């Protein structure tokens, strides 16, 4: 586990994740208190990535369950391998005939088969899904339940049970109890508010868009090839776009994509034309692009007015 909050920061940084002191504190507490961690925040602020680097930093395996509408226990916990069972019965037809040999009537035959059914409902025919894998794992794991808000309320109720005692019962096989309590990370985009019961069980971490300093640090680590000047300009623009009322506010991933694209184009410094041409790397919707362009033009006009010179090149104005 982690020795301290600073240790969290250092070890996540080794894996390329810049954690604020607030994030690191909550991570430290989750690992100390052995509580599931519910991470909420807008898209692209590093919720999923946090779980991934956490596993790397701890040297634990990451087991990930991507949630979606209609996700149910058979996809999350385990499923009987129906096809395999069927195949076995086909291949073993003769053997089954033998077993049934000498039985009188249907009822007796069914009884006889039923007495054998543990053969078919054994671990051989079970297909463990992420949750069962996390519970039966020999070594400690980080269990990521990604975008839990997309799953149905019924699934949430089921999860609640699992998170409170970390054991599951497979009726045919018995109860499995976790050897080591997995470090559970749930992420949510707030498509649906999670139930109070679930929230009570979890530590809560709200990750917002990073401030300027942290975003610069992230770029330094994620796009080291970009010049510092360019990074500063890019972050300025992105931060000002985040203040707009956009349908999809650009996240950190968009900032990274954008600066990578710009570096590929061998850009040293932003100008209006360039921004216009590459804007679709950070804002995706038609309406958003329009708003963003307006904002940037306004931004430029203001800076120009402040400097009181119409001759300064647009390049400098974006700083």
């Amino acid at each position, binding site marked *: 586990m982690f020795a301290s*909050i600073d240790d969290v920061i250092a070890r996540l940084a080794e894996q390329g994740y810049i954690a604020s002191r607030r994030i690191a504190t909550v991570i430290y507490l989750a690992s100390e*208190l052995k509580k599931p961690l519910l991470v909420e925040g807008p898209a692209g602020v590093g919720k999923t990535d946090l779980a991934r680097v956490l596993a790397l930093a701890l040297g634990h395996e990451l087991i990930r369950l991507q949630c979606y509408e209609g996700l149910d226990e058979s996809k999350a916990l385990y499923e009987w391998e129906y096809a395999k069972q*069927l195949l076995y019965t086909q291949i073993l037809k003769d053997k089954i005939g033998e077993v049934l040999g000498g039985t009188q009537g249907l009822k007796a035959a069914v009884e006889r088969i039923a007495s054998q059914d543990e053969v078919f409902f054994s671990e051989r025919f079970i297909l463990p899904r992420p949750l069962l894998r996390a519970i039966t794992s020999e070594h400690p794991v980080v269990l990521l339940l990604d975008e839990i808000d997309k799953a149905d309320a019924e699934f949430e109720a089921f999860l609640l049970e699992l998170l409170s005692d970390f054991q599951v019962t497979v009726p045919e096989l018995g109860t499995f109890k976790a050897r080591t309590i997995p470090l559970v990370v749930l992420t949510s985009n707030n498509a649906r508010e999670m139930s109070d019961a679930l929230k009570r069980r979890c530590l809560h971490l709200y990750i917002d868009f990073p401030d300027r300093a942290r975003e610069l640090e992230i770029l330094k680590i994620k796009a080291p090839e970009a010049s510092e000047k360019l990074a500063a300009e890019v972050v300025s623009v992105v931060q000002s776009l985040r203040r707009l009322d956009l349908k999809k506010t650009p996240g950190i991933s968009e900032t990274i994509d954008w600066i990578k694209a710009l570096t590929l184009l061998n850009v040293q410094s932003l100008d209006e034309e360039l921004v216009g041409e590459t804007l679709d790397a950070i804002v995706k919707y038609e309406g958003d692009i329009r708003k963003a362009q307006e904002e940037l033009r306004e931004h430029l006009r203001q800076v120009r007015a402040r400097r009181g010179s119409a001759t300064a090149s647009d390049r400098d104005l974006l700083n």
Partner: protein
Amino acid sequence: MQDKLLEFAELLRANGLRVSPAELLDAVGAVARTGLGEREVLRAALASTMVKRAREVPVFEELFELYFSGLGEIIRQTGRAIQRALAMGDREFQEFLEQVERMLRESGRELSELARAILLHNTGELERRLREAARQARLSSIRRPLEENHFAKALERAVGLAELERELNEVRKAIGALPYDAETRERLDTYVGIRIRELQEIIRRYVRLDRQSRDPAARDRSRLSDIGEKSFYHLSEAELDRMRQAVTRLAQRLRNVVAIRRRRGRRGRFDAKRTLRRSLEHGGVPFRLVFDRRKREKPQVVVLCDVSDSVRNASRFMLQFVYSLQDLYSRVRSFVFVADIGEVTEHFRNHDAAQALEAALSGGIVNVYAHSNFGRAFKTFASDHIGAINRRTTVIVMGDARNNWNLPYDSCLREVRQRARQLIWLNPESRSTWGFGDSVMDQYAVHCDLVEECRNLNQLYRVVDRLLPR
């Protein structure tokens, strides 16, 4: 520490946050591991254990400031003020403090811990002593502004202010005898002089802050900063903005929930157990896959939204909400009215939210400067648009039912109700005012399946929850 956390949890509860006993225990456990030393860490530890809704974070932040970091921040602020008064940068100030320490050593004086902490700007030590003094002076029992003076004096005694002043004055005298150049001596003298007055100032502000955090009136103020509880009527520009975002988010979330439910309804799930059972009839060959199928009617909604001046802010949010609703349900038809009534469905469909709202509210569709006339609006609706309504339609009326003493024509509303599946009325006025003055809410209410007060975001949330098809 536990007492302090318990008290803080009480404060959160008094301001509308739900903190369960289990969560309080988690907070205690968390703080036991992080310690109290660092403000940001403490804040994160408490937020992660006690605040589980993003909406509640601002209230938490405000109370945390009031309750925990207040004293430390006050001390740091005075430190910065002194630095400014001496016109020093951070670095310079550090060097200067080292010089002060040398000076104290050279003057050969035994100083009290408190005096050293103050002169050497040891903020942590100072904070610790003041908190201890506050405990002795029972500061936690303060309630009213009038008591501030009394408690400030008690704190001064507990911390030993008079003693401190005497000590520092002696230090000041001793400076003159030190072998420094005149400029240095003068600077040291100014510095100690400022420091003498400083502690009193800190105590005064500390007492005030502590009182505010316990004062019920101050609590109400911070409770109001919870946008969810704030009435649509009383919003500043910034709050309007936040509210707009919140309404959009609410609608988005709604969209997701409905989408999920609807899809599930349409598809039906593969039912493995029943498939297996059924297959027994065919010698175990799964001839037919069994799906669990649920039928669900697509709801239809007709919204009638009052856009008169008396409900201006409220209708803005309602319309924004209606705008999002149109995306949501297969068939939403939207109307706005003041005295006339007009349909905005197409408008909403073809324009972005800002434009559509502007058009609806600025008089392009109906005259918004007319005097409200619900009766006439319903009468017109019943004669011109009644075809919009059938047995599957939910009709939602949003308005304050202030009819300006016109004829209510509630028979027309009844006619609407009879053809519809249900009729819901959302009123942005406080329930206690319904039926008074020119409000004819009571006359209309008898024809409604549901009448809800809807004057803030939280109420809108609840209404929405009820509207959702299950």
